[in-house]
């Protein structure tokens, strides 16, 4: 079947912070660029980022990129690649000043310099004392960043394909990426984009968890696209959790509630944190509280019909304190938990927030795969940036404010590298004759199927299984049971049927295609987590409680074909400074 075809120098999949930053770099260099986005770019999930952009500008106290580098490596529990981390921390000031130059409305000091907020985990002089390093625009940093970058892209005449869903990469017989197949939602038309390069910038896949802070669009499309094209996924066992999301919704309740005296209770009304952290109790660190909550649920002391959450009680603080100091919390509880915290406790559960793993890349954003003796050979024409990529600067645990920094630094770096590469590779490569066959077969099956699995039901079963088996509290038995479950669910996801067969804005079809991507990510997560018999950063194994540098100071690489695992070493060698040797992580 002949499909319509268009031609570009570079095609970027995803219109969030990293995609827009890369698009700008390429468009301003004069390349012919297309950005694909499922939703209008300024409504990408980057809009949810509030905290700020970490950069050692030193506007508040003395600061240095080397201290930021140390904090990032320590935060990563030594799984981060030190070359990429040095690169990011050294480039931080430059990308923040560029954004300022583009018109980003940063908060200011009285002397006109950018104001910097305090944020957990950031220190002066290798952990000596806290430093203010986060550059923000009120509580709308992500929002302001998206608008600033989008306007600038329009000026640079970047071409946007809004409300399009990318389906698959096209690779030629040498493995080079030569095209992208995408679906226009308004018409249902499938189009082949012949291109010299593709940048995947599709964000995280937090929707694999039942409780997630991620918007519904975060379905890991880029991860599914890469995995189907034979690219392995790196470190997918590492997901960052926040202890208190509203059960059944995922909206966060700030840690400030426990700071004001809120306490956590199990089904027996017991203040269980007294057992897990006798000194700090409910104010223990995020990971300790999350793990305790999940253990209470796993051991049958959860609350509700499904015994799947615990309670956050704050009514003892009194109506006045709640209304005065925590007004936003009451609003959230009323709206998303249907409870008034002045009278009743809020149902809460550990909630997935951020994906540390992703498509393996180097610090130029080039996607790298093992080939022969080389653990990281670039795939010609393919890049990945932002939350869908694993550079790896976050390792086993991301430092707050480094997500927005990651988008800017590696968005720009990929744009620059690709711009140079395009100058030496001016020719479009030929598309293979069977370029779209597998994709069309996938769509055709969905169009023809009159009976089959219900997309919403399979999705719910997947999210429950991942939450239950790959949550904060992990054991080998839980994980291997989870793998069995997810394989059955993945098979069901390949046999869905939808009632609506229309070509025009067929949301049911999009959701079926998203589910196919999500189950790939779910399987990668469970298989990688089961194999890693240690606890490191966000991976907490109750049966292997210690970090094991002798055996596990390495990155997992999961391949979809055969669901196999390989490993590659962590790069402990920075670009110009001495290596930071792994140490016990104490705060």
């Amino acid at each position, binding site marked *: 079947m002949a499909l319509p075809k268009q031609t570009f120098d570079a095609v970027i999949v995803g219109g969030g912070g990293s995609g827009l930053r890369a698009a700008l770099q390429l468009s301003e260099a004069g390349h012919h660029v297309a950005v694909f986005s*499922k*939703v209008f770019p*300024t*409504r*990408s*999930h*980057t*809009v*949810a980022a509030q905290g700020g952009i970490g950069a050692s500008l030193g506007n508040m106290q003395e600061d240095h990129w080397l201290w930021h580098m140390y904090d990032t490596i320590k935060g990563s529990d030594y799984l981060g690649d030190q070359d990429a981390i040095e690169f990011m921390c050294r480039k931080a000031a430059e990308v923040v000043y560029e954004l300022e130059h583009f018109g980003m409305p940063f908060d200011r000091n009285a002397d006109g310099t950018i104001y910097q907020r305090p944020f957990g985990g950031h220190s002066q002089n290798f952990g000596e004392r806290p430093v203010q390093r986060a550059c923000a625009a009120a509580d*709308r940093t992500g*929002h302001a960043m998206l*608008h600033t970058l989008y306007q600038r892209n329009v000026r640079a005449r970047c071409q946007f394909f809004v*409300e399009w869903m990318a389906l698959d990469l096209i690779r030629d017989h040498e493995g080079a990426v030569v095209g992208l197949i995408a679906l226009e*939602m*308004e018409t249902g038309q499938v189009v082949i984009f012949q291109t010299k390069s593709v940048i995947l910038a599709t964000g995280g896949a937090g929707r694999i968890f039942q409780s*997630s*802070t*991620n*918007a*519904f*669009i975060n379905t890991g499309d880029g991860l599914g696209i890469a995995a189907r094209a034979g690219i392995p996924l790196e470190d997918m066992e590492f997901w960052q959790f926040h202890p208190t999301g509203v059960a059944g*919704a*995922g*909206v966060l309740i700030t840690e400030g509630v426990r700071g004001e005296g809120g306490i956590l209770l199990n089904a027996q009304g017991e203040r269980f944190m007294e057992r897990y952290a006798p000194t700090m109790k409910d104010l223990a660190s995020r990971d300790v509280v999350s793990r305790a909550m999940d253990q209470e649920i796993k051991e049958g002391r959860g609350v509700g019909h499904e015994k799947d959450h615990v309670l956050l009680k704050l009514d003892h603080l009194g109506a006045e304190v709640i209304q005065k100091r925590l007004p936003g919390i009451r*609003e959230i509880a009323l*709206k*998303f938990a249907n409870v008034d915290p002045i009278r009743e406790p809020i149902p809460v559960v550990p909630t997935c927030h951020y994906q540390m793993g992703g498509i393996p890349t180097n610090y130029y954003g080039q996607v790298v795969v093992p080939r022969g003796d080389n653990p990281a050979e670039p795939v010609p024409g393919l890049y990945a940036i932002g939350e869908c990529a694993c550079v790896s600067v976050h390792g086993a645990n991301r430092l707050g404010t480094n997500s927005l920094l990651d988008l800017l630094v590696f968005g720009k770096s990929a744009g620059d590298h690709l711009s140079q590469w395009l100058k030496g590779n001016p020719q479009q490569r030929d598309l293979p004759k069977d370029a779209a066959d597998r994709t069309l077969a996938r769509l055709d099956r969905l169009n023809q199927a009159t009976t089959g699995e219900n997309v919403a039901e399979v999705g719910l079963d997947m999210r429950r299984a991942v939450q239950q088996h790959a949550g904060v509290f992990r054991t080998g038995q839980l994980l291997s049971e989870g793998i069995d479950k997810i394989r059955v669910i993945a098979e069901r996801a390949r046999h869905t049927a939808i009632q*609506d067969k*229309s070509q*025009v*804005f*067929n*949301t049911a079809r*999009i959701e079926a295609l998203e589910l196919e991507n999500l189950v790939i990510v779910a399987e990668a997560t469970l298989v990688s987590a089961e194999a890693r018999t240690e606890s490191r950063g966000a991976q907490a194994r109750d049966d292997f409680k210690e970090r094991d540098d002798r055996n596990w100071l390495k990155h997992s690489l999961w391949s979809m074909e055969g669901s196999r695992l390989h490993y590659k070493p962590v790069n402990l060698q920075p670009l110009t400074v001495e290596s930071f040797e792994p140490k016990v992580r104490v705060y």
Partner: protein
Amino acid sequence: MTGDDRAQERLRWRSRRGLLEMDLILQRFMARHLAALEGDDLIVYDRLLDLPDNDFLDLAMGRSEPEDPAWRPLLQKIRES
């Protein structure tokens, strides 16, 4: 499928947002009201969907009021959902 169905499906897709809070609010609103939306309400909902997520969230949570009073009846349904 009729043209109206497709107009509603288009709005259903455009109700996918960058903020989880808006996804949840609009999911509940659509479950109760989307099938019955017609005429001016369809146009007003489309305009609301054009807003940046944070501004829309402020309106939906009652932290701010719309400039155009004609938006109020539909917004009230969103707030009550």
